[in-house]
Each structure stands twice: as structure tokens, then as C-alpha cells.
């Protein structure tokens, strides 16, 4: 095991009593609770952590947060494999097994690092300029290799065994960021009386204060305010939680990491996504330090100055002993001083000619070497930095080093604020972008607003907290926060992007975008910021260019001779940090993807051997296994049984709507194409509804229960749409109609008994019921009670046989189904499924979903005669548009197969005999069935009206099965055209 040779003997916010074992590329190491994977790697002296995207250059750890472009690892194996994770955001957990990425065969020796040698050819956009020949399909060959070389980590191909959860949460004030500004805002808002949610991505509160020594004034300030916040039961502290996006309605997307300190307990979610709806939001998201651009600025050992300080003070790691700190501002000097205090040999190379004298004096006091007007122009070393070339007023010099701390200034973390369209605004004094004007319900504080000093952050946070609470109507008096002045003088007096002196100077580390690439983009006219990004892939990495955006923008500005704001800004899109897709899906996976809808007889169907089918959300019996070996055998047997004896079908999935009121008949007269006003009480009628554009919307039967009350049924698929549409018409178009409509779909268990023996079965099941044609004629209604539940029997047929639809209160559904089966046993009553149902209706020539396809009219479906001369119903006017009346419009016909041993298929294209089978033909077959009655296949088709002559032939072509079959055009009603079976 590797000793923690870079760990300091004391200090830091790690728990030394709690060692944690982990491994990196199979090598076992140890860290402590309180480490991140990155700090633990540094403590163990690991400098080489990853390889870059394009050139496979060795990379180390640049940052201490989610902005990390380099140190990406993969955790886990098989279904738990998780690539592209920044080591800087991973809380070290016992047994964590991390692997480096994008290298083969090993991190130290990576074959593809030869890409670096080809760098002159691999300039930005080079793909666009070549690989175009020699043939049209050549790209496919090149692409194969390019895809293999691209990508960083490898995903698993097995299902993820872990759980995720999505939660809904509410707050008055949401505060994003647990640094000094956010903590101060939370305290103020809570004291004002608001319900507060404080969101912090880290596992510790404190933000930039965690980079301070763990035993100083900052630490006591932190302890005090954290204790204060915990004293409010209205404050929710959400640690390990990233705000990944801010969405309309002030909904903040949060993701909480719950599994990093060990596997989740059984059944617990490893990550939780929370949808936090806040009345007001305070953004206190801090700022991200910028790297500097110079040759080989990506060498392992180059670190942001603030990150280096965090590793030293928070994690008690001294990653280097010969340190160069290079800066354009004062803040980075604090890193120099702390490293010197920890015993490192430190040189400050400040690009400014005259840094503040106080800093220079302090440096002299503690033995830090200061070189002013000096910059790094090159770095040496491969897998770890060994030395730097410095250029200053006295020319160039070489300096040995094992850690280079860079600070090119700071960029406020404005990402979340811009998700809802607040445009960033350039602030010249800090040379960075801050949010533009917020709407009334959003506030900002601290470094995110460009106010970098801790004292200002606390003050600004306090003010924002008070205002955010006040926006929610919470204005209790609030005492001033305790002060903390760290005496920072973070100013950016100078911005300079030194030109590279040979060697690559990286702007975007992860995507391997160099200054030369920016220059090339400019030269070729890709100078709009979005063009620059897209042409060079700048900012497209997993870090979303958090450290590179501003550098690229200022580089392009310099090339264009324009200011930064003239050059543009970029749009920050959610998520702020990447979110696992599984976390967003939460519990809604597998069976829970969509809820199941079950009829009251569901369990009986399973017990009776039904093969179930998903129909929308419903589960319906497709066929019953005892009817046949497969669906094709079973449906024909079930059909035969209906035609010869009787069948029982669960039709509970039909939409059922109660329509009541003095104007109910008038209402139905308007919404149905055929009339209902004259329907006698106690009678049912088939009805068709149109859309406003005159196309058929849905069909069903409606029964008049009383003068002012109707019982409507709709198709299973359209039930919800029909209900909403009816409500729409009543609420918006005809509010004067006194009609109440209520879905009663779930109220009723519904079943249909169909077949020549259905009357006898009904009589056996309901001994007291008069089932005579006189008492219960076709389209007649019977209403009573059965076993304490409401009962409705409507004599309706879909199959063409004498049939009864029986509706009983849902609680009695199973009981009645069993009763019917039992009563029907002597009559060979057997249940049948939706496949047989569909076949029976085809034989009878009833249209359904395949014909009512959202493109057909009443006339197309042969239903025009139902309407006669009626008008003033929904869809009537536009159904008369000329193209909908054209003689060549396809209309419903019946087809029967006239070739022995062949069959019809739904989806076959129809041609005239002798016509070349090409194009769209004259129509298509919509539905087919084998007809036991006819002894061959029959089908419904939509066929051009000008050739749809009954008795003539068409050719049905099914290229996917290389089938061509002749069929005769016949009436779509294949069975009992006189309806004797219905009435008899």
C-alpha cells in the first residue's frame, strides 16, 4: 500500500481516526473520511490521473471542484459502471475502486498518445475537410475508427441494479450555494420567517471558506452560523446536493449523491433528484478560478491556486514542495503564503509590474521569492511537471518546480442564473460576467455577483436573504450577521493571454483546444462565439467549459480586436453538472415506467390462462391459452365459438361517460354526427363524433337512460380525449347548455356475452330477467340491481351475433364474470380475447382503430348515410371541403382472398390487375381475419373510390413477405348482411 507521503501530520478537515481504503487502477491506497478521491490521490503522491480527449496527453488534477476538466475516472463494474466522474467531486468511500480512462494499455503508457505527434494535422475542424472519398460511402469506413478513438469512459451494457428516487419539495426561499454568502442569506431568510432550503454540492458547508485554515477565524464563523441554521426547524440543509438546473416556475432541479461514502442500505436510493419549487431564489454559487494559457500549461502538477490552497488547508495535503505561483491578481498570493508556511519553497511570478507593496513585504518576511512582470512561458516534464521557463524583465530563466499554481482571475458562476434567460453582463472592473437584471423573485450574492471579498459576501448574502424572504411576505426583523473579514483584496488588474512559444497552450483542457485552434477558427471565419465552440468543440466536454469559456472568449476578442462583451458571451445550458439519466427517471423504471390499468376481472383472466396484452395503459386478454397453441390458432377457435355458441369478453376498458341535464340531448345532437335527440328512453344508438376539421374522431354507443340522462361509451383509446373534448365544448363554446358530464369508466365492470346462445345464457345467469325480444330487443336496455350493485344490460353487438353488454358495479365484476361462465358452461360459453374481438368485427364490417386512423371521413368509412341531411354538428362544415369529397378518395371496401392457399395481410398495398406495383397504389388493406364462415381470408380496405367497384379484382402486394395475392372487392359486411343474427 502506498503511504500517504504527501499528507501533512496535522490540520485539515479530515477524520484521521477513520482511514478509508480505496484503489486507483487496481493499486490499493488509503485516505481518510473527509477526503475527496482527488485529495486522497494527491495525498498518495499520484500526479497522473487521466489522458486527454484528442491527444491523450497526461493530465493531473487542476481543481478541487466540479469544474475539473482533467481528472475524470470510472467507478464500478458491470451494471454499476459509471464513467467520466471528476475525482474532485467524489467523496472518498470505503472500497472505492477508481479507474483512469481513455488510455490503452495503461495510464502511464498510452498508445494513442502518438496522436500528439500528428497534432499538426488534427487541427480544429480537420474532419470537415477530408475523409470525403474515394466513394460516397467512404465515411462509414473512416467513422468506424474515429468513433473507436473518440469517447472518454466506457459505459456498461447491463442494467443498473441500484435504485433512484425523484422527490417533490417546496420552499419559500431556495439558496443555492453554502459558502459565506449562501449561509448568511439562509440565516437572514430563516430569521425573517421564511421556509428555507440551502443547497450545497459539497459534503461540507463553507464553500471557499474551506480553503482557509481549519483552525482560524473562518472556521469559527462557519461553526457558529451552521449551529444557528440548525436551530431553525424551517431550514433544510441539503448537502451533497447539486442544483443542476433552474426551470420555469422557479423549479430547481437538485440531485443528491447518497452512496459515495459506502453502498446505500438495502432499498435506499443511491441518488435522489428533488424538484424544488421555490417562491424566491438566492444564487450564491461563488466563482471559478481561471487557469492561465501558456505552452504546456496542462502538465500534471499545474493546479488552480485556490484549489492548491484547498488541498493544503482542507485536506492537509502538500502536493508540491517546490512551488511556483503565477497570478494576475492578489488572491493567489495567499496560496503562496500558506504553502510557504507549510514548508514549501515558493516563488511568486506575478504578471503585474507592481503588485501591492504589502504583499511584497509579507512575501519577503516569510521567505517567498517574488518575481514581478514575470510570466511562465513553458513548462517541462511529462507525467509530472519538473520545471518552468519564466520570462521577465531580465529575459528568460529556468526554475525547477513540482507544483505550479495558476490564477488567471475569476469567473463568477453565473450558469444557473442564465438557465431562465437572464443574460450575463460584463463587469469591466472584475473582467468577468455577472448576471444581468434579475426578475423580482431572484437574487444574487457574493462572488457570483463579482463581490469576491468574504466580508462583502456575508453582507450581500444577508441582504439577499432578507429581500428573498420579504418577496414571500416574510419580514420579521433580522439581526446583523457576525462579521468575518479575511482581508482579501482580490482584484484583477491585468488580463493577459501570453502567446505560446511552441508547445501546445491549452484553452480547453478536456477537449484539447489550444490557442492555435482558436486562431484557426478565427482565420476561417468561425468567429461568432457559438461558431468557435462548435468548430473547435470548445466547452463541449463533461466540464461544460467551466474553466475555458472566458479564456476562449478573451482569446477570440483579442484576435478580432474587439472587447470581450463585443465578442459575445455564451449560453449556459442545464445541467450545471452532469446528472445520471437513471436519477432523473427515479422510480419510474421497469414495471413502474407507466402505471398499469387493470379491469375488475384482471385476476380472473390470469387464472383462466389469458395471454395479456398492453393496450395503452390497460392490460387486456389477447387470447386464452386453452383456445389454441398460439394467437393465430386461438383467435380462430374463439371466433368459431362465438359464432356457434357464445363467448364472454371483458369490455371494461371502454370509456364510459355519464351525461345528464336538461340540455343533454341537445348537447349530444351537436357532438355526434348522427342525431340523438329523438332516441327513445331505454334505447341505445351507435354514434360517431367528428373533429372540428371534419375527420372522424371516435365512435361508440350511447344509451338513453332517462329523458335527461345518457350513458355514453367511447373507444378504449380515445376515452380521455373524448371526455376532455366534451368538457371543452361545454366550458368554452356552449356554457349555456345545462349538462354535466362525468367519467364513470371505473364505476362499471363491463362484459359482453355474444353468440347464438347468449340469450339462453343470460336467462340462466339472471333467472328473474325477461330476456325475450319484446322485453329486451336489439338496442334495448334493462336496468336493475344485482347482488346489491347497479346493473345495466344493453343489447348491443359488435361481433354481428346476438349479444348483450352487461355493466355491473365494479366491485361485483369478478362475481358476475364467474356467474356468467358458470351459467354458460352448459352452452359452451368461453371467454375470448381482443384478437378474436378484432376478427369478429372485421367479419361484420365494423370499422375500428385501423380505419378510424385520424385521416378518414364519414363518407370514407361508408358512414355518411347515418348523417343524412343533418347539419350543425361538430365537424360538419369542414367535412365538406372539396378534397374530402373527391371521387378518388379512398373509401372502405371489403376484400376477399380469391387465391387458394394464400392469405390477405393488413398493410398490403392495392393495385389494379396488370398495374405495375410501384408507388402508393390505389389503397391498402387495413384489417384482415381468417373467416371461419367463409373459409378464407377476408379484409377491410381503403380503396380509391373511382376503382372501388364491387365484384372487380385488385392485387394486394406485400413486398416485405414477397407476397402478391388477388382479391375481390365485396361489401365490407361479410356476415349476415340482413342482421338476422342480431335480431333473431
Amino acid at each position: 500500500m502506498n503511504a500517504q507521503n504527501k499528507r501533512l501530520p496535522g490540520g485539515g478537515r479530515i477524520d484521521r481516526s477513520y482511514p478509508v481504503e480505496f484503489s486507483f487502477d487496481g493499486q490499493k491506497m488509503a485516505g481518510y473520511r473527509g477526503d475527496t478521491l482527488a485529495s486522497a490521490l494527491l495525498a498518495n503522491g499520484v500526479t497522473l490521473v487521466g489522458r486527454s480527449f484528442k491527444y491523450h496527453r497526461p493530465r493531473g488534477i487542476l481543481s478541487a471542484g466540479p469544474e475539473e476538466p482533467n481528472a475524470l475516472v470510472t467507478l464500478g463494474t458491470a451494471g454499476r459502471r459509471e464513467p467520466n466522474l471528476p475525482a474532485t467531486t467524489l467523496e472518498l468511500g470505503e472500497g472505492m475502486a477508481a479507474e483512469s480512462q481513455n488510455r490503452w494499455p495503461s495510464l502511464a503508457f498510452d498508445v494513442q498518445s502518438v496522436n500528439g505527434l500528428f497534432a499538426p494535422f488534427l487541427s480544429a475542424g480537420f474532419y470537415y475537410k477530408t475523409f470525403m472519398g474515394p466513394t460516397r460511402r467512404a465515411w462509414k469506413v473512416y467513422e468506424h475508427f474515429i468513433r473507436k478513438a473518440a469517447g472518454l469512459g466506457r459505459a456498461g451494457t447491463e442494467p443498473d441494479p441500484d435504485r433512484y428516487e425523484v422527490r417533490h419539495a417546496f420552499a419559500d426561499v431556495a439558496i443555492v450555494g453554502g459558502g459565506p454568502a449562501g449561509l448568511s442569506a439562509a440565516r437572514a431568510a430563516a430569521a425573517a420567517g421564511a421556509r428555507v432550503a440551502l443547497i450545497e454540492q459539497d459534503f461540507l458547508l463553507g464553500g471557499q471558506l474551506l480553503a482557509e485554515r481549519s483552525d482560524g477565524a473562518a472556521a469559527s464563523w462557519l461553526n457558529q452560523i451552521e449551529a444557528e441554521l440548525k436551530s431553525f426547524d424551517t431550514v433544510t440543509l441539503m448537502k451533497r446536493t447539486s442544483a443542476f438546473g433552474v426551470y420555469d416556475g422557479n423549479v430547481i432541479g437538485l440531485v443528491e449523491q447518497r452512496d459515495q461514502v459506502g453502498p446505500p442500505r438495502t432499498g435506499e436510493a443511491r441518488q435522489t433528484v428533488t424538484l424544488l419549487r421555490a417562491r424566491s431564489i438566492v444564487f450564491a454559487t461563488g466563482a471559478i478560478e481561471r487557469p492561465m494559457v501558456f505552452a504546456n500549461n496542462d502538465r500534471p502538477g499545474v493546479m488552480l491556486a485556490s484549489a492548491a490552497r484547498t488541498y493544503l488547508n482542507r485536506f492537509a495535503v502538500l502536493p508540491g514542495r517546490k512551488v511556483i505561483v503565477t497570478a494576475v491578481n492578489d488572491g493567489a498570493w495567499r496560496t503562496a503564503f500558506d504553502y510557504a508556511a507549510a514548508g514549501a519553497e515558493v516563488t511568486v511570478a506575478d504578471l503585474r509590474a507592481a503588485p501591492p507593496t504589502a504583499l511584497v513585504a509579507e512575501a519577503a518576511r516569510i521567505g517567498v521569492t517574488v518575481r514581478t512582470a514575470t510570466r511562465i512561458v513553458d513548462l517541462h516534464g511529462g507525467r509530472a511537471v519538473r520545471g518552468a521557463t519564466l520570462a521577465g524583465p531580465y529575459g528568460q530563466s529556468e526554475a525547477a518546480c513540482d507544483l505550479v499554481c495558476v490564477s488567471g482571475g475569476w469567473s463568477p458562476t453565473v450558469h444557473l442564473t442564465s438557465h431562465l434567460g437572464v443574460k450575463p453582463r460584463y463587469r469591466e472592473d472584475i473582467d468577468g460576467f455577472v448576471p444581468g437584471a434579475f426578475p423580482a423573485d431572484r437574487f444574487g450574492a457574493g462572488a457570483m455577483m463579482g463581490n469576491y471579498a468574504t466580508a462583502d459576501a456575508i453582507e450581500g448574502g444577508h441582504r439577499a436573504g432578507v429581500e428573498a424572504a420579504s418577496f414571500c411576505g416574510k419580514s420579521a426583523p433580522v439581526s446583523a450577521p457576525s462579521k468575518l473579514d479575511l482581508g482579501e483584496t482580490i482584484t484583477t488588474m491585468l488580463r493577459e493571454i501570453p502567446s505560446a512559444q511552441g508547445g501546445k497552450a491549452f484553452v480547453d483542457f478536456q477537449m484539447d483546444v489550444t490557442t492555435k485552434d482558436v486562431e484557426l477558427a478565427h482565420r476561417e471565419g468561425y468567429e461568432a462565439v457559438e461558431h468557435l465552440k462548435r468548430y473547435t468543440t470548445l466547452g463541449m466536454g463533461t466540464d461544460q467549459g467551466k474553466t475555458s469559456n472566458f479564456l476562449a472568449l478573451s482569446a477570440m476578442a483579442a484576435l478580432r480586436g474587439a472587447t470581450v462583451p463585443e465578442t459575445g458571451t455564451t449560453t449556459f445550458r442545464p445541467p450545471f453538472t452532469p446528472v445520471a439519466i437513471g436519477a432523473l427517471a427515479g422510480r419510474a423504471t421497469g414495471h413502474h415506467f407507466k402505471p398499469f390499468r387493470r379491469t375488475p376481472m384482471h385476476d380472473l383472466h390470469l387464472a383462466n390462462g389469458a395471454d395479456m396484452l398492453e393496450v395503452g395503459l390497460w392490460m387486456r386478454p389477447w387470447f386464452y391459452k386453452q383456445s389454441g397453441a398460439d394467437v393465430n390458432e386461438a383467435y380462430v377457435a374463439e371466433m368459431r365459438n362465438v359464432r356457434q355458441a357464445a363467448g364472454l369478453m371483458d369490455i371494461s376498458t371502454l370509456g364510459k361517460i355519464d351525461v345528464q341535464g336538461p340540455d343533454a340531448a341537445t348537447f349530444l345532437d351537436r357532438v355526434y354526427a348522427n342525431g340523438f335527440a329523438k332516441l327513445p328512453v331505454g334505447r341505445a344508438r351507435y354514434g360517431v363524433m367528428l373533429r372540428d376539421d371534419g375527420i372522424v374522431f371516435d365512435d361508440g354507443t350511447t344509451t338513453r337512460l332517462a329523458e335527461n340522462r345518457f350513458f355514453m361509451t367511447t373507444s378504449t383509446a380515445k376515452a380521455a380525449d373524448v371526455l376532455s373534448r366534451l368538457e371543452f365544448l361545454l366550458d368554452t363554446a356552449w356554457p349555456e347548455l345545462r349538462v354535466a358530464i362525468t367519467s364513470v369508466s371505473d364505476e362499471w365492470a363491463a362484459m359482453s356475452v355474444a353468440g347464438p346462445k347468449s340469450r339462453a345464457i343470460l336467462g340462466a345467469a339472471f333467472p328473474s330477467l325477461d330476456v325475450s325480444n319484446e322485453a329486451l330487443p336489439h338496442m334495448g336496455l334493462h336496468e336493475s340491481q344485482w347482488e346489491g350493485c347497479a346493473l345495466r344490460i344493453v343489447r348491443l353487438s359488435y361481433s354481428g351475433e346476438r349479444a348483450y353488454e352487461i355493466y355491473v358495479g365494479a366491485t361485483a365484476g369478478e362475481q358476475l364474470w364467474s356467474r356468467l361462465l358458470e351459467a354458460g358452461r352448459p352452452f359452451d360459453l368461453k371467454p375470448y380475447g381482443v384478437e378474436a374481438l378484432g376478427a369478429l368485427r372485421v367479419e361484420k364490417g365494423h370499422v375500428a382503430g385501423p380505419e378510424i386512423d385520424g385521416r378518414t371521413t364519414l363518407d370514407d368509412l361508408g358512414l355518411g348515410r347515418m348523417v343524412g341531411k343533418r347539419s350543425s354538428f361538430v365537424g360538419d362544415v369542414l367535412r365538406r371541403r372539396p378534397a374530402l369529397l373527391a371521387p378518388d378518395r379512398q373509401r372502405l371496401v371489403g376484400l376477399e382472398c380469391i387465391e387458394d392457399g394464400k392469405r390477405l395481410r393488413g398493410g398490403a398495398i392495392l393495385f389494379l390487375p396488370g398495374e405495375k406495383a410501384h408507388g402508393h397504389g390505389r389503397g391498402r388493406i387495413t384489417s384482415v381475419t381468417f373467416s371461419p364462415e367463409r373459409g378464407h381470408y377476408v379484409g377491410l380496405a381503403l380503396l380509391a373510390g373511382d376503382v372501388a367497384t364491387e365484384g372487380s379484382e385488385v392485387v394486394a402486394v406485400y413486398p416485405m413477405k414477397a407476397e402478391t395475392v388477388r382479391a375481390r372487392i365485396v361489401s365490407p359486411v361479410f356476415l349476415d348482411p340482413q342482421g338476422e343474427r342480431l335480431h333473431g
Partner: protein
Amino acid sequence: MASPDFSLSVADCPLIQVEGWDGMLGQFESSLSAALGTKLPASVGETVRHKNFVIIRVAPRRLWLALDDGTQGSSLAIDPDLGCSVCLGEGRMRFSLAGADIASILSTCIAVDWHAPTTAPGRAVQTSFHHVPVLLIRTSETSCDLVAPRSFARSLQDWLADG
């Protein structure tokens, strides 16, 4: 959660729906109030408990009478010039949820603020539970009923069980 403080029981849920016509609402309500012998909830989300039922206003002109367990549902005679009623005694299930962890468990089911005044004990809220319409009746600090369509009830129960 290892052993959450939470219990769930499921039962039938007899309901009667009554609705008044637009333009006749005042008369409808006074007549209904007289017939039931109690005042009606004034606005949507309010409930009034009376005898063995709870009256809930579920829409501006629509009320539900939710009958206690074991009560037989029946229809209510309404003057057809004032409104109408429909028995919804069969189509819904009532989930009774209770326990200290109820708020946390429900937060994975519905997007309603458990601590808002509109969700306080005695209030009713119609909302979406995994795409399914439910009526939440808040019965106490740590309990509520969810009234859900029968066809979805088992699916929602499975969802709760997997929480």
C-alpha cells in the same frame, strides 16, 4: 428506509357526486344544504364533515359526498332544474395512509406541499400521482386518505410499496 413509520390500508370508497347548473348555483346549494342538514364547503378544497360522510367541493359547481367505510352508497334526489347527481360508489379505492414518515413517503408520489395551508388537516387536494388523478383528504398531522381510480389502484399501491 429500514422500517419507516408508515401504514397503509386500502378499502372501497363509496361516493356520490352532485353538481349544480351554471346560473342556478345559489338555489342548488341552499336546497342541497337543507337536504343534507349541514352547510356546504364554500370553496374548492374545503371539506365539511357531517354524520357519516364528508362533503368535499371538487370543482366550483361540483361536490363529492364521501361516505364512511361500511356505509351503503345511494343516490341523492336533486331537482333536475337545479342540478344532478351521479353515484360514484364503485369506481374508486380509498388508501388510508398514516405515520410520522408520511410526508417523506408522499413526496415521492405527489407534487403537493404537505405543509401548505391548502393541505392542512381538513382540506382536500386533487392532484396527480404517477400520472393518475387522485384526491388527497388530509385527515390529521400525520395521516391522509388518497382516493384513486380503481383501475389504477393496484399499480399505485405497488408504487407505494416499493418506496
